[in-house]
């Protein structure tokens, strides 16, 4: 089964870097959707079956936090894990975001290894997870 992944970042460079990084993980990926702000991210979630979201925090129109809040109100968070990717490395910020329902936090610049581990942790269970990590 391939995964559908949504990348939400206002920087086309970061979206391109994320796409390349995801391809390097070796994970079975069906489609990578992209959005340049939180509102476009929500639009993508409404149209497509997304398994996991990687999102920046500071974006115009709608921030990553605002998008997570909307996903909470729409009861999407239990089904679709959100991973925040940010240059902000503070534990305080990570704790604030996890209180809002963010499942994980990755520091920029991300690596294929970190992305793969987070994705396996959040999407794979039991024996499937071990296989995912051993690939």
């Amino acid at each position, binding site marked *: 089964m391939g995964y559908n992944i949504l990348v939400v970042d206002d920087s086309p*460079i970061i979206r391109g*870097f994320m796409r*390349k990084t995801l391809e390097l993980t070796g994970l079975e990926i069906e489609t990578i959707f992209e959005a340049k702000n939180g509102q476009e991210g929500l639009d993508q979630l409404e149209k497509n079956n997304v398994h996991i979201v990687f999102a920046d925090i*500071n974006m115009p129109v709608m921030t990553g936090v605002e998008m997570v809040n909307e996903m909470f109100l729409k009861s999407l968070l239990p089904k679709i894990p959100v991973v925040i990717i940010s*240059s902000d490395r*503070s534990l305080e910020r990570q704790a*604030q975001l996890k209180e809002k329902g963010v499942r994980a936090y990755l520091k920029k*610049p991300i*690596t294929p290894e970190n992305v793969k581990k987070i994705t396996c942790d959040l999407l794979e269970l039991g024996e499937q997870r071990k296989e995912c990590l051993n690939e």
Partner: protein
Amino acid sequence: MSKEVEEKLRESVSEILEQFAFMFTEDISAEDNLTGEILLGSIFFTGPQSGIIDIAAPESLCREMVGNTLGLDDESCIAIEDCENALKEIVNMVCGKFTEDMYGNEKAIDFSIPSVVRLDSGKWKEKVRWVYIPMEVEGHALCAALEIVS
């Protein structure tokens, strides 16, 4: 400004360029050797201290960074906006790494939205900053700068 602070900034720039753009830096003892028109990326941070980090680089280096980051063989298709976006991201990540090394990662630090301007290297050299770190990045000149304002 202490040598320790200079070293932290230098290491932050080197690490981010290596991890994000797959480019390696060399320290140079000479003065900043930027010439002609350059792109200047800047970001403000507010935390235990407040300051500004600049990264000045020629467009040719930014173009190569974009090509490396996105895995593009043909750099001629890279728009100037892509170069500016790449430099914004790099200065953003450098600020994140530097402030973590300086102040730890317990408390949140606020960053401004990074900006990029084009200017002549002569104008860049007129700016007053506490720390200037000229570097060479695979044959290109680059200069990182820092000022603590409070």
